[in-house]
Each structure stands twice: as structure tokens, then as C-alpha cells.
């Protein structure tokens, strides 16, 4: 059993106009373009905003570092200024005689130091450098400072804050000294700053785990104990550089050689104190300083890249779907294209055949006249013996037969190419078929074939072209009868039924003829295809019928088994589409006799 039309999957494959590789390339191209168009802006914006924010945050951080350092410097300076003021007050409101006497200096020291304990000791030194009075834990009464740097400095400048030095007590300390000129005599009031307290003050700023606060003099000697870089009074591994106003911030590269424990990229902020000329410096690991910013930065980039990945994945799937739609459309378009090409091919064949048919009729007519002339001559002559004459006449009769056959062929061709106006009417299908059967009954009976009709019940009226439909039915019955060639008897069963689901009717023509072999059945509706022996069929009947049924909006299919018979199934809509009304495959209306 074979089906009359190919399966749609096969048709799809045949209709795919471009190979799969084309669609793969298309997919890649689309994915590339789409992701480029969506990812590039996303990434640019993401990076842009992120970068901008990072720069902004960093500059804010640095600014805040600046401010902090400036504030811290102010604190240290204020501290020193205040202590200096205190000493100045005492020196200039008390006489040397007073301070020398008894416990005056001691009580003064106690009161002066009560609030914060910022002084370690207090001493009065005369212009010769000798201690005149002393309040403090160290045994310094006999010591002389003539020639000491701080001594000379204070005599010169009147107020002096020293760098850290060891001095007689052999402990790193620094002093604040104030000069008093009392009635021509000069004496010095000197106090040692409490190192611990001062260190605590200097270090009392938040610099994180990796940060350290450094106080250097102009020679690069530590004035306070740093956390990492060395010891108080030691040489710093970094130079203080030149004097400058304000806060200077710079980043320094990792310095493995000089500070092996601090081999990191660092941020350094420094500012010079006015009095004394000390450099206050903060050193912090660059990474730690900007930790928060970097963290935010990383988080943003993470989400940015996740979004980009999502876009990429979604784009890929969407594009794949789109390409499959494109492919399907291509296949559909190609299928339609092929149909159009088929139709125009058929139309071209039709036109060509019409031309040929017309042209051939004239020579055929002439052949018949020549044959008639010869026939007349043979008829008249008495010079031919009977048998000879008979053979001649038979030959001439054969000429006539063949010419008539040519005529039938050309007529069929013309009918094939003819674009008739069809007249759409409402008709009763069962009654119509009965009429058709009546037309063919006599001819069928002579061939020993019975025509059976099984009319469907409650058949709705059919709106279609009766003359064209009649042509189809007659063609099918004629074919069915021809299929019984050689068989002594047979039946042709015609049945109709209403198909409410598809809103149409179904007509079946089943015969008990020789059947159509499977290899031929797919071509049965092709024009000029015939299974009949040479000279018997034109191969146009079914192709014309197929065209008619299609134009009437229906479908025709065939099933057959060799030796058993064939069944044609026609389905028609209850109402023929408008196109059946006189328009051919090219949409042209035919000429109508007017």
C-alpha cells in the first residue's frame, strides 16, 4: 500500500534551501552580534561606573587620610604648644630665687603635672649650665649642660623643643626648655616630656592593622616609637625628604631591600610640624587602606560578570530559537517557491501544449486529405487485385485511426491548458453522482463492471462547480473501468459521507481492478504519467482531476494494492473557495464568451 503524497518530513528536508552549516553560521553570527550589542554597553557602563566610583571612593579615602593626618598634627602641635605655654607661664611668673627654695619647684611640678602627667621631670638650669633646682625621678642635680645642644639652642631662641636624645639619664627623652631673663640674669626652666604619654598621643590614630605612625626629625631619626619600622632614635629606612607645606600623600612601591618585613605596596601621608620641625608620617598598606573600596569594587564586578554571563546564556537560547524559526520559514518559503515553480512550469507546459496542439492540427488535416485522395484513387481503379486493394485500404484506415488518435491527444492537451470559467452552484452530491453513474452505466455494463453507489446519510448541499466535478468523476470511473482490462467482471463502488469535523464531504471511488504498484503510485497525479500501454492513455486525466480538486479547495489521495484494486478518496469543503471561480494557478481570469 502506498500513499499518494510524500510525508511532510521528507518534504521539509527536500525543501531546506540551505545546508545545516549555513544555519550554524547564522546562529553564531546572531549570537555574536546580539551579545556584542548587549554585553559591550553593559560592560562599558559597569566598568565605567565601577571605575568612577572606585576613583571617587579612593579620592575620598585619601582626602580623609589627609584630614586625619592634619588633625593629628594639630593635636600634637597643640599638645606641645600647651606644655610650652605652661612652662613659659611658670618661668615668667616666678623668680629663680623662689624656685630654688625648698620644695617650691616640687609642689609646682606636682600641680603642673596633676591633670595629665605629661611631664616626666622639671628642672631649673642657670646660664652656666648647672642645675639650680630639680623635681623628678632622676638624679640630675649635679649635672651640667653647658655645651649641650638643647642648652645652646634655648639660650639662642628663648624656647626650644628638643629632638629625642639619651642625655644623662640614658633613656630616650625630649625636653621643652624656656629661657627666663630676670634682671639681667638668664636662667632656663626645662621639662622632660613623658615619653610614654607622648608616644601614646602620637600613636593614638586609627591606621588599621598594617598602618604605623612615624615621627621623624629632619635627619630621619625616629622621635617616637614606630610599630614596625624601627626603634626610637633609630634611623628610618626612608628619608623624610624636603620640607613642604600641608599634607603630601604618595604611594611607594614595595621595598624588600630596606624593609623586608614591610614588603608591600604602601600609601604614605606626611606632614611637617612647625615647632619642632618634625615629620609626622602615616604608612599603611595600600591594599588595607583601600580595603573597603576594593571590596565594593570586586562585588560590583562580580555581579556585573554574572549579569553578562546570564545575558550570554539567554541570548544563546533565544537566538537558537530564532534561527530555528528562520530555518522553518526558509523551508516554508522554499516549499511555496517550489509550488509556484511547479505551477508555473505546468502553466508553461500548458501554453506550449496549446500552441503545439493548434499547430499540429493543420498538418493532420492535410494528412487526412492526402489519405482521402489515395483512398479515392484506390476506390476508382480496377487495376488492383482484391487482396492487394484490401491491404491498401486497411493501411489507409490505419492512417485515419492514428490521425484521430493524434487529434484526441491534442484535444486532451488543450483541455489541460484551458483555463475555463467555472460556474459555482449549489448541488446535491448524491443526486449528482447518480446522474454520473447513469451516464456511464451502459458502458460499464458492456465491460462486465457493476457500478455500486453507497450514498451517505444527511449529506449537506455542496457549493462547487458541477461541470468540473463531473469531469473528475468521469475520469475516475473511466480509469477504474480501464483497470479491469482483462478481467471478466468487477465492481466500482462509489460512496459519499459528510465529514462534520473538517466541514466537508468525502467521496470514495473503489475498484477491483489491477491496482497500482507502489513504485508508480507516487507519480500517479503527475502530468503525462500513465500506467496504460502505449497508445491507450495520455496520462493527463488524473493530473487534470488533481488540479480541479485542488482549485475547488479539496484534497485527492489514492491507495492501492496490486491485484486487489485501487481506492481514490476525494475530500471537498462544503463551499468551494473563491479562487475556483475562473482563476488559474497564476491568478488570471480566463476569457469568457461574451
Amino acid at each position, binding site marked *: 500500500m502506498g500513499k499518494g503524497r510524500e510525508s511532510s518530513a521528507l518534504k521539509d528536508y527536500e525543501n531546506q534551501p540551505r545546508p545545516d552549516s549555513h544555519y550554524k553560521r547564522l546562529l553564531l553570527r546572531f549570537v555574536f552580534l546580539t551579545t556584542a550589542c548587549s554585553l559591550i554597553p553593559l560592560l562599558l557602563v559597569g566598568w565605567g561606573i565601577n571605575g568612577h566610583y572606585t576613583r571617587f571612593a579612593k579620592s575620598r579615602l585619601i582626602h580623609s587620610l589627609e584630614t586625619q593626618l592634619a588633625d593629628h598634627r594639630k593635636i600634637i602641635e597643640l599638645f606641645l604648644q600647651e606644655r610650652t605655654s605652661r612652662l613659659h607661664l611658670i618661668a615668667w611668673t616666678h623668680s629663680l630665687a623662689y624656685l630654688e627654695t625648698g620644695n617650691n619647684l616640687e609642689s609646682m611640678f606636682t600641680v603642673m603635672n596633676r591633670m595629665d602627667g605629661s611631664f616626666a621631670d622639671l628642672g631649673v638650669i642657670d646660664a652656666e649650665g648647672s642645675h639650680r633646682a630639680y623635681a623628678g625621678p632622676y638624679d640630675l642635680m649635679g649635672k651640667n649642660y653647658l655645651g649641650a645642644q638643647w642648652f645652646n639652642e634655648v639660650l639662642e631662641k628663648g624656647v626650644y623643643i628638643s629632638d629625642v636624645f639619651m642625655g644623662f639619664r640614658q633613656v630616650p627623652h625630649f625636653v621643652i626648655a624656656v629661657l627666663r631673663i630676670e634682671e639681667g640674669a638668664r636662667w632656663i626652666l626645662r621639662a622632660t616630656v613623658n615619653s610614654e604619654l607622648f608616644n601614646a598621643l602620637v600613636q593614638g590614630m586609627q591606621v588599621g592593622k598594617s598602618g604605623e605612625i612615624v615621627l621623624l626629625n629632619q635627619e630621619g631619626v625616629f622621635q617616637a616609637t614606630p610599630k614596625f619600622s624601627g626603634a626610637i632614635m633609630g634611623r628610618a629606612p626612608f628619608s623624610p625628604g624636603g620640607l613642604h607645606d600641608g599634607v603630601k600623600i604618595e604611594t611607594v612601591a614595595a621595598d624588600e631591600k630596606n624593609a623586608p618585613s614591610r614588603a608591600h605596596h604602601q600609601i604614605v601621608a606626611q606632614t611637617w610640624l612647625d615647632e619642632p620641625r618634625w615629620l609626622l608620617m602615616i604608612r599603611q598598606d595600600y591594599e588595607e587602606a583601600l580595603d573597603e573600596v576594593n571590596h565594593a569594587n570586586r562585588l560590583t564586578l562580580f555581579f556585573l560578570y554574572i549579569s553578562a554571563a546570564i545575558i550570554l546564556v539567554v541570548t544563546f537560547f533565544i537566538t537558537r530559537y530564532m534561527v530555528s524559526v528562520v530555518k522553518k520559514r526558509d523551508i516554508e518559503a522554499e516549499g511555496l517557491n517550489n509550488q509556484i515553480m511547479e505551477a508555473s512550469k505546468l502553466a508553461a507546459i500548458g501554453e506550449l501544449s496549446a500552441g503545439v496542439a493548434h499547430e499540429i492540427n493543420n498538418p493532420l*488535416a492535410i494528412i487526412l*486529405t492526402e489519405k482521402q485522395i489515395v483512398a479515392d484513387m484506390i476506390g476508382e481503379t480496377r487495376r488492383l487485385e482484391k487482396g492487394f486493394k484490401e491491404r491498401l485500404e486497411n493501411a489507409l484506415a490505419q492512417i485515419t485511426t492514428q490521425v484521430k488518435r493524434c*487529434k484526441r491527444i491534442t484535444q486532451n492537451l*488543450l483541455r489541460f491548458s484551458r483555463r475555463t470559467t467555472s460556474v459555482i452552484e449549489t448541488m446535491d452530491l448524491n443526486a449528482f453522482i447518480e446522474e454520473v453513474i447513469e451516464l456511464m452505466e451502459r458502458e460499464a455494463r458492456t465491460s462486465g463492471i457493476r457500478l455500486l453507489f453507497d450514498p451517505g446519510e444527511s449529506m449537506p448541499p455542496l457549493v462547487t462547480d458541477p461541470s468540473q466535478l463531473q469531469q473528475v468523476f468521469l475520469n475516475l470511473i473511466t480509469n477504474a473501468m480501464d483497470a479491469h482490462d482483462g478481467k471478466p467482471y468487477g465492481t466500482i463502488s462509489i460512496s459519499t459521507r459528510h465529514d462534520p469535523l473538517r466541514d466537508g464531504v468525502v467521496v470514495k471511488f473503489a475498484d477491483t481492478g489491477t491496482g497500482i504498484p507502489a513504485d508508480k503510485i507516487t507519480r500517479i497525479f503527475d502530468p503525462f504519467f500513465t500506467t496504460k500501454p502505449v497508445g491507450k492513455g495520455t496520462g493527463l486525466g488524473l493530473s487534470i482531476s488533481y488540479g480541479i480538486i485542488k482549485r475547488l479547495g479539496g484534497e485527492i489521495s489514492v491507495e492501492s494494492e496490486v491485484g486487489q484494486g485501487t481506492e481514490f478518496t476525494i475530500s471537498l469543503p462544503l463551499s468551494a473557495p473563491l479562487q475556483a471561480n475562473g482563476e488559474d494557478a497564476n491568478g488570471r481570469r480566463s*476569457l469568457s*464568451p461574451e
Partner: protein
Amino acid sequence: MKGSRILLVDDETVFTENMSALLTARGYRVTTANSGDSAIQALGENSFDVVVLDLKMPGMDGITTLKEIKKLGLLTETLILTGHGSIDTALEAVKLGAYDYLTKPCEIDELVDKIEGAWEKKDTGEKQEMMETVRKIVESPKSVYGVYPRDKKNK
């Protein structure tokens, strides 16, 4: 009818020659024309019983020739014999007044049948026309008097 005058119009000279010979052998008097123009000319010079006309000819085609023939107002019947056949042109020809329509190739006997039929029609037509003329003469005496010279005495 033996001796009927046939005008055979077709641009294929071999066809007209052969057909002329065959029809002549069957007792007709055949004149041939190979174009619409020469056909009209022939109809002007002689009278014919039946015109056998092809449709597809160079110059004036069959339908135009048919129209021209009808314009002449003759009783001659026209038979269309053509290889370029279609229902449409057949209907058109019949509407224009052709007696019948045959497609080439056709057997001589078919053609003779149609020619006879056409002749019959023409013959009947002629007879009717004659009867008409006679009736007119009989029914209007004045015109008969007009034939004889007036006699002053008989006034």
C-alpha cells in the same frame, strides 16, 4: 447538393488544393481563397452557397472575415473549419451567425455532411425570400400597375 458552389477559405494552400480536389470529385464546384481579403473579394464577384472558413489566418482572421461576410448580407451559409479550436471561439462564431463549427482534422464525410446541412439552410432561406418577394408583389397592386404604361382612355 450536387453542383453547389463552395468557397473554401484557408491559408494552407496544400490543404485548399487537396480539399478542393476531393470536394470536386464529390460533385461540388469549389473556389479557393487563401486569405480573408481574397474571400471577401470572391464573394463580391460571384455567388456561393456555402463558405468553408478557417479561423487562424494571417491578415484578416476568421472571425473578422465572418463579420465582413455577414455585413455583405448574403444568404450564403458559413461553416467554420479550424485547427485552433476552443469552446469560446466556437460559441462566438455561432453567435456571429456561422452555421456550424468543425475542428481539423476531420474526415471528408463529416465535412460533406455539414456542407449539405448548410446548403439546405441556404436553400430554404432562398426559397423563403422568394416567397416574401412574391407576397409583397401580390399584396400591393399599385406596384403592379406601375409596370404597365398609363392609358389616358382608362383613367
